[in-house]
């Protein structure tokens, strides 16, 4: 069943002289129990999409979509209160910047305990205090914090960024949500802890059937942990499909570049050797190229590329490119 079904999500920032379109007609579905990857260049709009789904973008942004259905109900057409209630109950988001999302004036332990809803404490109200404390300690252990006493008594600025991130993750899983949106959840964590965090997320996924939208720009993470992947460039989806298909034969030149630029990922790289990469930079939203947005950086660009390519589907693997890579003969004809 589709948990979340987003059609043509557009996120705009009206300014006095120009309408900036930061996310342009992005569609995606998240099925129950699925781990979906969202990968893309920084500034491509990944965090905006995450924030738009949970409705935390401020009023300066204009969010529109043909639909944004959560288990059959269109979130964008629900009264604000109802929407907030559904999201508060069912969706957790782990933000990219942990230190900005924790309250600097409250002890970490208090904040964590606050995020545990009464409904999941199997205790009478006079036992709740203790149950809550135990639950909080358990959550910290789960995300790999051994010294729970010190962490619970600390203010966020006294902890390192990585520990703050673990606390954020503990808070996100406290309510056993149906969907966890994880925006670069492990960027500040080292390999062992990163693996540990993904194991926690994966076990929630397997035991509780929790869906996960995993936002990252790390293709190694994508390849290990996700079932399906969406690739975003400059606010538009350029490729989507099964993760294994995308890694083994990417259709889009951008995806291909992302994969080959990681040292030692698909092929061995010599020490200090120059890495393969696309030239140029991401255009700013005010100066987007005409036609295909990768055009000026794309090694395969041809005259046709001044017309924006549409998403086309080959089996379950879609791409927006006039000259997809790695096509088999049969796929070229269709």
């Amino acid at each position, binding site marked *: 069943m589709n948990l979340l079904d987003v059609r043509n999500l557009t996120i705009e920032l009206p300014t006095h002289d120009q309408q900036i379109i930061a996310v342009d007609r992005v569609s995606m579905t998240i099925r129950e129990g699925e781990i979906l990857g969202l990968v893309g260049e920084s500034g491509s709009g990944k965090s905006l999409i995450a924030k738009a789904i949970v409705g935390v973008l401020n009023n300066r942004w204009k969010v529109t979509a043909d639909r944004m259905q959560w288990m059959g109900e269109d979130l964008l057409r629900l009264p604000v209160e109802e929407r907030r209630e559904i999201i508060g109950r069912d969706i957790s988001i782990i933000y990219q910047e942990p*230190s900005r999302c924790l309250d600097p004036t409250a002890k970490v332990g208090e904040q964590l305990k606050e995020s545990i809803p009464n409904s999941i404490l199997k205790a009478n109200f006079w036992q709740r205090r203790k149950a809550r404390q135990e639950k909080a300690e358990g959550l910290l252990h789960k995300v790999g914090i051994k010294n729970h006493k010190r962490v619970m008594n600390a203010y966020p600025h006294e902890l390192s960024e990585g520990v703050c991130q673990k606390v954020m993750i503990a808070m996100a899983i406290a309510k056993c949500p149906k969907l966890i949106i994880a925006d670069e959840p492990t960027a500040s964590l080292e390999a062992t802890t990163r693996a540990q965090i993904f194991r926690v997320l994966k076990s929630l996924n397997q035991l509780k059937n929790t869906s996960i939208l995993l936002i990252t720009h790390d293709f190694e993470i994508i390849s290990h942990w996700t079932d399906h992947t969406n690739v975003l460039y400059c606010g538009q989806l350029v490729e989507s499909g099964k993760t294994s298909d995308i890694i083994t034969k990417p259709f889009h030149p951008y995806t291909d570049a992302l994969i080959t630029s990681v040292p030692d990922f698909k092929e061995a790289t010599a020490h*200090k050797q120059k890495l393969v*990469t696309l030239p140029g930079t991401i255009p700013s939203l005010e100066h987007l190229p005409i036609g295909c947005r990768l055009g000026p950086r794309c090694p395969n660009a041809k005259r046709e590329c001044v017309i924006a390519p549409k998403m086309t589907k080959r089996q379950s693997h879609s791409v927006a490119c006039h000259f997809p890579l790695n096509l088999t003969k049969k796929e070229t004809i269709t």
Partner: protein
Amino acid sequence: MSALLEVHNLCKNYPMPGTLLYRQQITALYPLTFTLERQQSLAIIGEAGSGKSTLARLLAGVEKPTSGDIILNGYPLTEKLQRQRHKDIRLIFQDAKDSLSPGVKIGSTLDNALKLNTDLAKEERIQKIGRTLIKVGLLPEHAEYYPHMLSGGQLQRIALARALILDPQIVILDEALGALDPSIRAQIVNLLLELQESMHLSYIIVTHQLNLVKHMSDNVLVLNEGKLVESNETNRLFMSPTHEYTQRMIASRNI
């Protein structure tokens, strides 16, 4: 000849949170000794909270060590040499957003670094800002932007620009590559490698990305709970890690 950077028994304590009365201390970094040669890269790896950023801040002079010495080009760094140190050792923070003032244009931030640390004239500074922005893969126009108008990765490139603009000898990258997406990260890695050759730069790279450690660094320090548990040449460390903690980390590399 002495090494570019020598660090002797560097150590840092912080007051323990929640114990104002007893003034208990926690040791973020136990006495640590190492050297860094010119044009070499040293990677520092370790769990969250293991003291990596503390070490980075001490080296850059943002914080004072509890004890120990830092010797650059044979001279101990004292407070008198603060200005020189700010030029020679540049730190790029883990969180670019926090290190840029929100109400200040990117161009002014870069200009301030130049004004404080060099005697360049206005026109030269503008030129230099433009060139540096291009170096890190941005456009000269970005000088007119405010930090909130840029994404996380773009901000990280601004931070790199701010470090490189003073032609330093040592650049400390505290998780500064982590926020970059691969196509730009690969460009920046290439750029860092290029600059290392042309400007004989040394790097201290704090990162959780072991593939970058393996690719870029010559030597590695492994910190665990504030203690140095292992240090070795990069390829030896990856081939035969001796400490149990390092072994676990390298084993989980591909997960």
